Structure formats: structure tokens, C-alpha cells
């Protein structure tokens, strides 16, 4: 998580390696229009400590799943203006498929698992929290065994 500007170019430079032939990067930017309304700026509030852990977890999953060389991801918090980068991801890999798949995996997982909330401010002076994605309830399989004998 970052409270200062981020860029995919910085992350891409960091993941590049002499053994990796492919670098894929993604930037999610603040759009001037969202769901038909004119956005002036937006504010991200995050559960920072958990968000950092979730980003590390998602990155580790992608590394493991696609055999990527290296993956780097940053998400902004705080106030962002139109065009500012909200999320940046870069992945390097020996071959392109792993790099593409890794970046795509990370952004899709962020959308459903990262504890962060966006409040949009509109040109008409109003603002609202975005209708978000209901986060996952941990599946029963994750429940520690000892709880079954409890209570």
C-alpha cells in the first residue's frame, strides 16, 4: 500500500531480470467518468495492515501458480485525482504467458479480496462510497479443527 504516487514503469523496471524474457504491467487509473457520473477525484480508505498482507498473499499465489520470475504490486490510498494511478502491477517471467497470467491473476484477486474502499467525489459536489464487491467469507474448510469440539 502506498500513500504517494505509484507507476507501473517503476515496478516493471524493478522486476526485470536477465533471465526473464517477458515483462507485463498493468495500471488502473482514475477515470473522469464512472458509471455515468463525472468524477472530480476520489479517496481510498484501506485497512492498511491487512491489505499489505493480502497483497503479499496474492502475489505469492500467482508466483506459485504461474512460475513467474518476480511480481510487484502497489495500491494507492488517500486522495487521487483524474488520471492518477490507483493500482500498479508488474510481473516478469521467462515466457510471456506466465507474465500475462500473473498480472491478470493479481488484479482480479485485488478486486475481490483487497480490503480497500473507494469514495468518489462528483462534479456536482456530492460524493459516495462505491457499491463494492462482497468480500469472501472464509470457506468452512479453513476453520481450525479444534473448534469443532468447542462449545
Amino acid at each position, binding site marked *: 500500500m502506498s500513500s504517494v504516487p505509484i507507476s507501473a514503469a517503476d515496478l516493471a523496471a524493478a522486476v526485470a531480470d536477465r533471465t526473464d524474457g517477458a515483462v507485463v504491467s498493468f495500471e488502473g487509473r482514475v477515470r473522469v467518468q464512472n458509471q455515468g457520473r463525472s468524477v472530480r477525484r476520489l479517496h481510498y480508505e484501506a485497512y492498511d495492515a491487512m491489505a499489505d498482507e493480502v497483497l503479499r498473499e496474492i502475489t505469492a499465489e500467482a508466483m506459485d501458480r504461474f512460475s513467474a520470475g518476480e511480481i510487484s504490486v502497489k495500491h494507492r490510498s488517500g486522495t487521487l485525482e483524474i488520471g492518477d494511478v490507483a493500482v500498479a502491477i508488474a510481473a516478469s517471467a521467462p515466457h510471456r504467458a506466465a507474465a500475462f497470467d500473473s498480472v491478470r491473476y493479481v488484479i482480479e484477486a485485488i478486486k475481490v479480496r483487497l480490503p480497500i474502499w473507494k469514495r468518489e467525489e462528483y462534479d456536482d459536489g456530492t460524493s459516495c462510497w462505491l457499491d463494492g464487491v462482497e468480500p469472501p467469507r472464509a470457506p*468452512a474448510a479453513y476453520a481450525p479443527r479444534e473448534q469443532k469440539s468447542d462449545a
Partner: protein
Amino acid sequence: MTLAENTIRVRLFGYYRELAGKGEIQFDLPTGVRVDDLVAVIRSDPSFAELPSTPAVAVNRRYAPGNQVLSSNDEIALIPPMSGG
């Protein structure tokens, strides 16, 4: 649950923080209380009457199942629908 009580603190964010008017709420609840029990208690507050049927709860920064037992040492957070990316 046993009758002994412990203090459960719950961090709030975004829309939920605004519903409560503060970033943390707390309850004295019996030892052995579970995530689902805590959610029922929160929902009994009129401010949270419109909570989703099974809102996400993080315990020690991980999404927790409804049957996870809570203790006063846990870092607990009620997680609104997210809008990252």
C-alpha cells in the same frame, strides 16, 4: 459459550465506519463467542440493520469463517464490500 465475558473490539472502515460514526466499536461478550454471534450482536444496533446477511469479518487480518471463536486478543474487523483496483 461459557458465561465468562471478554471484550471484543471491532475495527470499522469506509461506509461501516460512517454508519457507526467511529472507527472502532466494542462489546463485552461471553467467552467462546463466534464470528456469527458477533455479527448478530452488531446487527442488533439499528445503525447496522442493513448489514449483509453474512458480512465479511477479518480476524487477525484474515477472512474468518462464521464458526471461528473470538478472543479479546484478536484483531477483528468488519469488512464492507470492497472497491479496490
